[in-house]
């Protein structure tokens, strides 16, 4: 058994480590919590998010599973029905689809189907997004499939601080939570405050940079892209909002910003058509129609399967494409 010192307030660590400490706290706080997935035990996860947890909490609470995503989520549903709080890891975004039926027809429906008798406090962690030079099916952004499914809560973290607090909030949440983790930011370092009391609620969007000329809406990996774009823009003052929660959407925070700036760009890596940004654009239009100078602009992936990694820098929204869209809000 390894002993790990809990990080104190303001400790700097990577996003992967912040998730790790969050999961450790969740496991320590509640004996009903367990972590399960492919290679999460002995190996500590391919991104080391569960590093050391099996040694600390045992292989029954940090469980290496057979290689089957439907099996991971399906058995987790059964465990939740028995009173446990499983945290499932799907190893990569593109591997979630074998579990799609379990997530959308089973997990998401069971509270309604049982008229509230069944609670499914399940977390499904999914590393998502591209930009790491990975192979096919390792760079996708499948969030819109899940935001479209009532019964699920869908969140995405973008900083070590949020990674730590949001994973703990997700584990404590009585509803199923699909938890997206930005792969390309796993090794980004930042301060982490382990005091949950000072953290914003899981379903709140956060203004991460204040500005007055246009609002950039982002989540997961594109938060950093938007912050870089705002920093690079010397002429205009750009506000950046990290949506954090995709379902529910914190419409009030978004609308308050756009009503003030009059311009809105929503940025994600997933294909634009039918993507999450379409929903955000529609909501912003409904709430801020009179304030908007132009239609809400969307920046994202193209109408093509995620490309081979030598082409991904063309496919992924970058600083220039974000600023090009900002140009078109005038």
């Amino acid at each position, binding site marked *: 058994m390894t002993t790990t010192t809990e990080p104190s307030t303001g400790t700097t660590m990577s996003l992967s480590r912040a998730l790790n400490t969050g999961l450790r706290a969740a496991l320590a706080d509640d004996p009903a919590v367990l972590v399960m997935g492919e290679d999460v035990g002995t190996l500590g996860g391919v991104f080391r998010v569960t590093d050391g947890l099996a040694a600390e909490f045992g292989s029954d609470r940090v469980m290496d599973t057979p290689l089957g995503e439907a099996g991971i989520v399906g058995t987790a549903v*059964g465990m939740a029905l*028995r*009173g446990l709080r499983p945290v499932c890891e799907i190893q990569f975004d593109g591997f979630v689809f074998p579990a799609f*039926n379990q997530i959308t027809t089973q997990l998401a429906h069971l509270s309604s189907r049982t008229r509230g008798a069944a609670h499914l406090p399940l977390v499904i962690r999914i590393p998502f997004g591209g930009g790491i030079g990975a192979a096919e099916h390792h760079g996708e952004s499948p969030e819109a499939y899940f935001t479209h499914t009532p019964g699920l809560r869908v969140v995405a973290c973008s900083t070590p601080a949020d990674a730590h607090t949001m994973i703990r909030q997700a584990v404590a949440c009585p509803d199923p939570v699909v938890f997206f983790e930005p792969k390309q930011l796993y090794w980004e370092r930042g301060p982490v405050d382990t005091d949950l009391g000072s953290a914003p609620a899981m379903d709140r969007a956060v203004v991460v940079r204040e500005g007055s000329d246009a609002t950039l809406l982002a989540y997961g990996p594109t938060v950093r892209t938007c912050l870089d774009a705002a920093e690079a823009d010397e002429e205009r003052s750009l506000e950046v909002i990290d949506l954090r929660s995709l379902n529910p959407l914190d419409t009030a925070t978004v609308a308050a910003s756009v009503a003030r700036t009059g311009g809105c760009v929503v940025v994600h890596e997933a294909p634009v058509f039918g993507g999450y940004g379409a929903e955000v654009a529609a909501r912003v239009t409904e709430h801020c129609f009179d304030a908007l100078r132009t239609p809400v602009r969307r920046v994202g992936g193209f109408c093509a399967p995620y490309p081979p990694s030598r082409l991904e820098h063309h496919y992924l929204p970058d600083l220039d494409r974000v600023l090009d869209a900002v140009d078109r809000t005038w």
Partner: protein
Amino acid sequence: MSGAEGQPLRLLDAEGVYRDHPDLRADFDEAQIRGLYRDMAMVRRLDTECLALARQGELAVWTPLSGQEAAQVGSARSLLPGDMAFPTYRDHGVAWCRGVPPAALLAHFRGVAHSGWDPREYRLHPYSVVVGGHALHAVGYAMGAAAQGTADAAIAYLGDGAMSQGEVNEAFVWAAARRAPVVFVCQNNQWAISEPVERQSAVPLAERARGFGFPGVRVDGNDVLACRAVVRDALARARSGHGPTLVEAVTYRMGPHTSSDDPRRYRTAEEERVWLRRDPLARLRTHLSRTDTDPEKFLASVDEDCDALARELRHACRTLPDPRPGEIWEHVYAQTHPLVAEERGWYADYLDSFEETP
């Protein structure tokens, strides 16, 4: 226990004559046999009434179980109170044995609720509609029960069609790897709507279990005593930490797939006649008539109970209250969700706007 291939295990032959089997422990007394007969007769009557209610338009659809009473009652009566059952949409006999009231059973089929009972109260999961999706839930539930140090077991009901589903096969992998206290009862009723079982499997279904690493048993699904004995022993095995068992109950869906189905399009009347002669209810009745101390009185009392159940069902069906529109949003989430609250409020106002002003 033997019997993954070849002749299914059996205690009552087609003529209702009891014959000992070396692999089956069958020490059922008269009260137990009467109880099994009563259950089977009641669910047969429930089935007949509900099919009629569907034909009359009182139910949106009905999924008849006739022919499968022995497999359902024999297995479900082997469960202990703490065990959890995960049924399919045809397992009304299982619901009956778990004590679900008839009105609650009808809620799904009348369209007033997706499921009419509290799964915790009756230890019965909602009917599974997406075929095979619940097999993994049973395994996970069993894993949870074992992790909590209890002796509770789970039972997953499957049809022959579900045996082709990937999720069911994953459930077998998980259950074997974790030695989960779960029993899979596959009612092989020969038909997955119009697909005969021989078009779905190159081997007897029970034989597949061996490849996953646990026993598979073929039992005569129209012999309630054999089903009762086999599933009881499989549950005991699961409880004692020896892992899962696949029980293939060889039976027949005597009626249509649902009230909307027409089996004449895919199977012959001759086949139906052959299986009618193997009717599980008639078989046990013949046995009872020969062995019971007062069969006439007992069978008459069951008939009375069946008539009372039929009346209760018809009344319950027609008096099931329609749900309120607000129920659409009631349990989507356990915790407050702003969009759900917003839509619910808007729709209530919208409906109110139609109220006539005097």
